């Protein structure tokens, strides 16, 4: 499903040209060089090129022509940019119908949740029977918030509702952008939602960075490496409290996530994550969806520090009546 090779022969004829033209880091607010007239080489610009012919084809969803990602100055595929998913998996990673959402009597269509098709390969999450019961209980109590001064505060209520950190992979399909900032040592993933932050350690030889998570965390302990144009991120050391969606899909502290970020066009990353947790699932399972490059010319993350919005939700039971 990742690559469409039907036109491979045709593309092999044009790739020598296309690589050169496409492997340029896109700039927000600018069309790629290949589709812009080049005033300094007028004759070439007037001649239809194989690239122009290729891009004249209407793209087929789920299929990306062969593509080579631009490179950073140190020769690595360049993932820098601001990205966002456009799936509804934050509501439910599996197929779901549109629904009214909470309190339609006051929220009306503002509060309604869109339907959408799932991102889980094969459609179903392979829960153990007892774990499936827990997922259903989570869903039933998704808006039951009871914040105590101990870990029981996590017993009920979707962490998203409480503005807690989203965890992995949920952070990547929240309806908010996130920025990838790449250096020779680390890949930073900075999320607009709840200002969550991940550090992906890229230097396996850096002995100052522990191989194993020194402590459990919401966003996990992540090491990364490149496989061709793909950034592979291996994360463990998660707390047991984050959920995958508003439908109560969850994991334990044995969660292990392997993510693959593959650049498939100047404007798309194909995101795949394999989720493993022997306490909750009978086998590893996989989600995948595209990430889209945000191209507004003034694009930047802005604050969504939702903690200030949930103070009375979290602590209202302790407020003066």
């Amino acid at each position: 499903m990742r690559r469409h090779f039907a036109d491979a022969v045709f593309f092999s004829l044009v790739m020598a040209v296309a690589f050169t033209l496409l492997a340029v880091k896109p700039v927000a607010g600018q069309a790629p060089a290949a589709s812009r007239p080049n005033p300094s080489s007028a004759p070439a610009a007037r001649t239809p090129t194989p690239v122009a012919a290729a891009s004249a084809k209407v793209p087929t969803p789920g299929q990306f022509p062969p593509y080579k990602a631009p490179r950073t100055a140190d020769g690595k595929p360049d993932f820098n940019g601001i990205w966002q998913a456009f799936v509804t998996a934050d509501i439910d990673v599996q197929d779901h119908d549109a629904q009214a959402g909470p309190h339609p009597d006051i929220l009306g269509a503002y509060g309604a949740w869109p339907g959408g098709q799932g991102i889980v390969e094969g459609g179903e999450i392979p829960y153990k029977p007892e774990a499936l019961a827990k997922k259903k209980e989570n869903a039933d109590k998704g808006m039951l918030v009871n914040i105590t001064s101990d870990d029981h505060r996590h017993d009920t209520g979707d962490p998203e509702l409480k503005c807690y950190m989203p965890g992995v992979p949920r952070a990547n399909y929240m309806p908010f952008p996130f920025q990838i900032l790449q250096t020779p040592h680390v890949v930073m993933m900075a999320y607009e939602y709840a200002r969550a932050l991940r550090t992906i350690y890229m230097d396996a030889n850096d002995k100052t960075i522990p191989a194993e998570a020194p402590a459990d965390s919401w966003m996990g302990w992540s090491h990364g490496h490149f496989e061709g144009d793909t950034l592979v991120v291996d994360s463990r050391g998660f707390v047991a409290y984050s959920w995958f969606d508003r439908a109560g899909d969850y994991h334990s502290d044995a969660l292990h996530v392997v993510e693959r970020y593959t650049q498939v066009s100047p404007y798309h990353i194909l995101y795949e994550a394999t989720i493993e947790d022997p306490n909750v699932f009978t086998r590893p399972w996989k989600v995948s969806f595209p990430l889209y490059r945000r191209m507004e010319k003034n694009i930047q993350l802005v604050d969504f520090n939702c903690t200030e919005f949930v103070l009375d939700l979290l602590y209202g039971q302790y407020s003066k009546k």
Partner: protein
Amino acid sequence: MRKNWGPLSSALGIASAALLLAPVLAAQSSASPKKTDAAPAANSAAEAGTGKAKNWVMPRMTDGHADFSGYWNNLSFTPMERPAKYGNREFLTPEEMKAVFKSGVRGSYDPGAQGSEDRYGGELFNPDSVDYDATTYGLSPWQNGIKPNPRTSLVVDPPDGRIPPLTPGAKTRLAAGARPAGGFPYVIDDHHGGAVVHADRAKDLGQGTTCTTQSGGPPLTPAEYNSGLFIAQNPSYMLMETETGSEFRIIPIDGPPHAGFNIHQWHGDSRGHWEGDTLVVETTNLRPDHTYRNGDPNTEKITEYFKRIDAVTIEYKFTIDDPSTWTTPWSAIIPMSASAGPLFEYDCSENNNDAVNILAGARASEKKAAEKPPVPISQK
């Protein structure tokens, strides 16, 4: 006095030389683009300990500009404003410097230790508010690579080391009850051996206790503990993560103009540009309820200057320019020392026992008071 601050003058010498050589080094870097900059700061710190610091070369990114990537710590025992006893003296004697540092280290993990005027003369450190035993939590300054600071105050301009007077307009504004950035104090001494907690709802606890925001700047000022900073940088962006609250700022370098006037952010809207090897970061668009030192959100501009002066030090300077709040702009220098990484995720709101316990305690006190009204002192 000058001979007493040899280390600083030599550091300045290195910095000046680096500035002069910048174009040459930049040219060399761009001629050999495969040259990767840079051991992480932690390695540099280790090298410094073995004496290799003398051969230090400014780490550079592939585009030739200075690279600040790594782990730093800006814990300081130097008061923001110069204590009166130093008069116009800008630098401590070596003996004074050692004494201030020793007192600061002791006080940082022993709240009962007697604080010196040097340490507590400013407002950065309050011995009564130190609530962690740093020996237990591994937060001791000596574990963070902090070096003694030869200055008598962090404020370096005006030359008297004091923050300039408020404008008449600012005095009026603040007297009219502008809410302090950190919120009002919610624990009030009742002067009868107890305290009264004024916290009707969570918002009354202020931005820090509610985990709304705790750090991140600008400017980057030290805290009593967890003063760690992580910088990840590439030619287009610098990301700064502050340890407390894991808050971050992403600063476009030579990027687009500031966000529009109606965008207000907890850490403002920052833009960076290079002046030689100094990264200059200008921040505006602060939230009205989170300006620096209750400045005017419409006029407060914060300019930060990042300059590496040796293998283990960033000289960090900031200038506050807010003509509607202070009569003149003012500046402070807070050195950042190379520190060992990594930083750990700081889940604050996700684990906020304080908010629950303080509010629940306040309600319990109110209930108890209602059940048994206190006897007025006059009738005791």
